[in-house]
């Protein structure tokens, strides 16, 4: 027995979607979706849960993560209820639910709060730079140190507990019985999806979108590896230097396309971009681009100018690591792959 809660619709609209009430349950969205299957059909079901406010059912569902937003459902919807955007908003909502700190929800729902957070982190960076007398060497050294510590801390304190919560909501609370061996056997699923996003290939719209995204993920992860593990800014190994250039170039070139489509709003997927989506791609662009320039200036020995550039880079990096990764859109990288893993576990 589920209690109907019409107030949930108002809550969800704070995460973006607001047209889902127009739905009259025809099911065209589900019929047209190339990822929806008989065993796991969406998005109509999720729209229904949302309009009726069945929060427990939504939290227990992995379906929002199974959608890769080609936008076909939204363009086919006879009532313009924007089911694709609803799925997107549910992902934001779920991200907020999984987050034990509750900060994700606050940042998603309030743009002023997000901007304040960005400003505070910027002030922090300036204060830090001031404290080390704006010395590039020291700043780069600290920046490198910060990256390592941030990855460890955020992963351990925020992301791991959040994944555990996701597991609790979707597997444990709905009382799904999963034998221990299945956890091990299905592990492959997690990594395949994490590194290939192969499910997105099932979307009808285009293979190019997947390819672009795939390249970006590989580029991003490699850049992360190059800077953190191989100390790109401090290294003198030619291979590492070139690798860093290539990877950072990939990141900012690909994100140009992503940013421009978010601005043009020419595809269904980018039509309803929220600030969190914009921050994500823009900051990714800045990261790649400033990293590229910082290394370039090091190589060109433009130290005075590089000082200011690095402060900019460090600001982007800190904001990325403290805001976007733990509480922003970055988490979809984890949740999507874990959702595929959990879905595999739930399979009978």
């Amino acid at each position: 027995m589920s209690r109907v809660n019409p107030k949930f619709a108002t809550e969800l609209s704070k995460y973006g979607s607001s047209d889902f009430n127009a739905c009259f349950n025809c099911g065209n969205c589900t019929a047209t979706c190339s990822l929806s299957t008989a065993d796991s059909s969406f998005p109509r079901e999720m729209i229904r849960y949302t309009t009726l406010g069945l929060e427990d059912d939504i939290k227990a569902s992995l379906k929002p993560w199974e959608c890769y937003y080609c936008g076909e459902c939204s363009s086919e919807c006879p009532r313009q209820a924007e089911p694709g955007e609803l799925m997107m908003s549910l992902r934001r909502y779920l991200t907020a639910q999984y987050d034990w700190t509750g900060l994700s929800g606050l940042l998603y729902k309030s743009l002023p709060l997000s901007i304040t957070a960005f400003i505070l982190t910027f002030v922090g960076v300036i204060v830090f730079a001031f404290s080390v007398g704006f010395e590039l060497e020291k700043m780069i050294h600290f920046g490198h140190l910060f990256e390592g510590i941030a990855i460890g801390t955020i992963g351990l304190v925020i992301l791991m507990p959040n994944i555990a919560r996701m597991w609790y909501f979707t597997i444990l609370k709905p009382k799904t019985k999963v034998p221990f061996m299945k956890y091990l056997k299905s592990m492959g699923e997690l990594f395949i999806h994490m590194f290939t996003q192969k499910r997105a290939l099932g979307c009808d719209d285009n293979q190019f979108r997947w390819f672009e995204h795939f390249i970006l993920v590989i580029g991003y992860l490699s850049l992360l590896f190059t800077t953190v593990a191989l100390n790109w800014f401090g290294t003198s190994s030619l291979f590492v230097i070139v690798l860093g250039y290539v990877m950072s170039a990939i990141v900012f070139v690909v994100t140009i396309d992503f940013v421009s489509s978010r601005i043009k709003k020419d595809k269904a997927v980018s039509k309803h971009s929220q600030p969190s989506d914009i921050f994500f791609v823009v900051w990714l662009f800045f990261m790649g681009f400033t990293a590229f320039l910082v290394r370039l200036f090091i190589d060109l020995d433009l130290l005075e100018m590089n000082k200011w550039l690095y402060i900019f880079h460090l600001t982007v990096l800190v904001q990325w690591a403290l805001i976007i990764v733990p509480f922003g859109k970055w988490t979809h990288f984890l949740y999507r792959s874990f959702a595929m893993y959990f879905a595999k576990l739930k399979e009978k």
Partner: protein
Amino acid sequence: MKQRIGVYICHCGGNISDYVDVEELGKMFHQEENVVVSKDVMFACADSNQKDMVADIQANKLDAIVVCSCSPKLHLHTFKNVAARAGLNPSNYVQVNIREQCSWPHSDRPREATVKAAGLIRAGINRVSYSESLENIELTVKKSALVIGAGVSGMKAAIDLARSGNEVFLIEKDFFVGGRIAQKQTLFPTNQNGKEVVTFLYNEMKKFPNITIFTGATVEKVSGSLGNFSVDIKVKPRYIKPSADKRSVERAMGECPVTIHDDFNLGLVERKAIYKNYPEALPDVPVVDAEALKDAHDFTSKFASTLNLNEEAQTLSLIAGSVLVTTGYDHYQPKEGEYGYKTISNVVTLPELNRLMEMNPEKLVYKGKQIKSLAFIYCVGSRQTKGDNKYCSRQCCTSTIHTSLQLKEKYKDIQTYHLYRDIRTYGKQELMYAESSKQGDLYFKYEEKEMPVVSVDGKSTIVKVKDYLTAKKEMEIEADLVVLVTGMVAREDATTISELFKIPIGRDKFFNEIHPKLKPVETVIKGVYIGGTCQGPKNVSESVQSSLAGASKITALLKSGTVSVDPIIASVDANKCTWCGKCSDVCDFTAIKEVLFGEKHVAGVNKAVCTGCGICAPVCPENVIEIAQYTDNEIESMIDGFMMDFDIKEKGTGEVVEVEEEGKVGMKEYPLVWREILAGMTAEKNTIPEIVANTKLAGELVTFHLMTMNRYGVVVPAGMDAKETYYYYKRK
């Protein structure tokens, strides 16, 4: 007897001739006595053939024609017109259906199809030879119309009828005009106030001196027929002296100490015993409930100059050429306990909610509690697959959704839940449905087999529903008010009206039209039309459409002062009639009455009323009633014709094929019923009840066929049984 008959047998381009040997039949009937022309034609209905037929009729001086083709439903009038164009009386024409009755059903047995066609054609020729030339009956009519029911349909029809120059009597059972729409504050789709529409229509009617409105009036007695209905109406008293001035009446209303059930507000409040339905109700004269005031002596003596509690009801006689019935509908009244109605305090019906909304302009309050959420349960009293009301009430989906939009507009912070079976907001009304869901109204689909359940949980009311839109999940909805969307049912007094005017009533208890598409406002009673919701569920615009259609029909009917009706009616041979009254008893239309014929009492048929149904003819013990075109001569000669022997050659071979003998009747093969009856005659001799028991055939059918079998010598009577109740029959 007709002696110059023309027979046309149609190929229907192969539809008939592929199985029935029409060429052979054409040649065969040429040799018949009295048949002058007999030919097979490719398409009898083709223009060229119609011209040839006209030429044939005129050249050969034919006095009757038979066309053997398809169903009379398709082409009876085509060939009647051919006859008329050739100067022949159209009654001297008979159509024989050898397509639907021979070639199509017996395509697997062409020879038998031909035999059957031959029998039917022979029957047709025999019938037409007894046909008489008949003329349509002309009746004088009075240019006045009686409209029963002054709701929106009746008032609109009255205005149209009056504008076309008819005298109109509009009678209303209630003391105020307007009917149901006065109870709706906003009508979809225009959002007009129902009361304003009523006022507008009333003022419009007042502009026509030829409209007379009677309120508080009911029909008591109806006689007469098309053109001259004589209707007695009873006008109930208002108990207010005509001499009383308006101010004293208003004072009496204000000071009245007694309150009574407020019918207009569906009992949600009480009203004074001197009342108007609502302040602007029309006619602008209050009504006194004399019964309620009978003990309030102080009050009544104070207003003795205003009130007249002894006023008597008046009976008036009206003469109307035609009648339009627009008596409307009743709201379905949920049974006690149906979804908690009357047993749970906050369960109301949609009409009650509409009254509540009008009474609460600021906040929606019911029984002292502010209403923030409402659950509508649709289809209450409609679409009951097992109950009485199997139909869909048609307007309630839209009405509810419209109400839901009004709720949001009026009271802002309000949530509605809609528990429906199917949403039927057809036509433009669909837009309202879209608007409703966009404003956040929640829809749940339930099935009749798993109805929602209303229950009380502590202080809150819970509606439980198995939602088919959420994979049949059980949902709990908390609602401050549960609204039962009740459908339309026929008025309680519909049976009275039906009995008075003889309007047939359907299984749904609404009045029946003749044909839903082709005669949508006509009833089988000539001159009586139906409009609005007395015919079945309709919304306001559909009601007005149908009543205006009825008004146009009436105007057209009465326009010339005379009407021409079909001559196929009963006639009584007054010389032989002995007036036993049996025919009058069985007549559904009161068309037969006792009349004087010279010194003698005989049955007289009212030509304007008789529908030619034929029920009177077989009950006449003297056999002196005939139905035009279906006279005994015609019917018996048809049977004779059908039973005659034929030598039918197998098509193409020219050989006469011997048909197996079975019995000694003319027709080579018995009708199936005869075979069954013969099989049922198990003993040497049997009575009719025995045969009925053996065959499982209906008693009347066995009686009828046994008589015919006797006539054709298949069976013969063989004395009576011991109690001398039944005859025995045996095979000959």
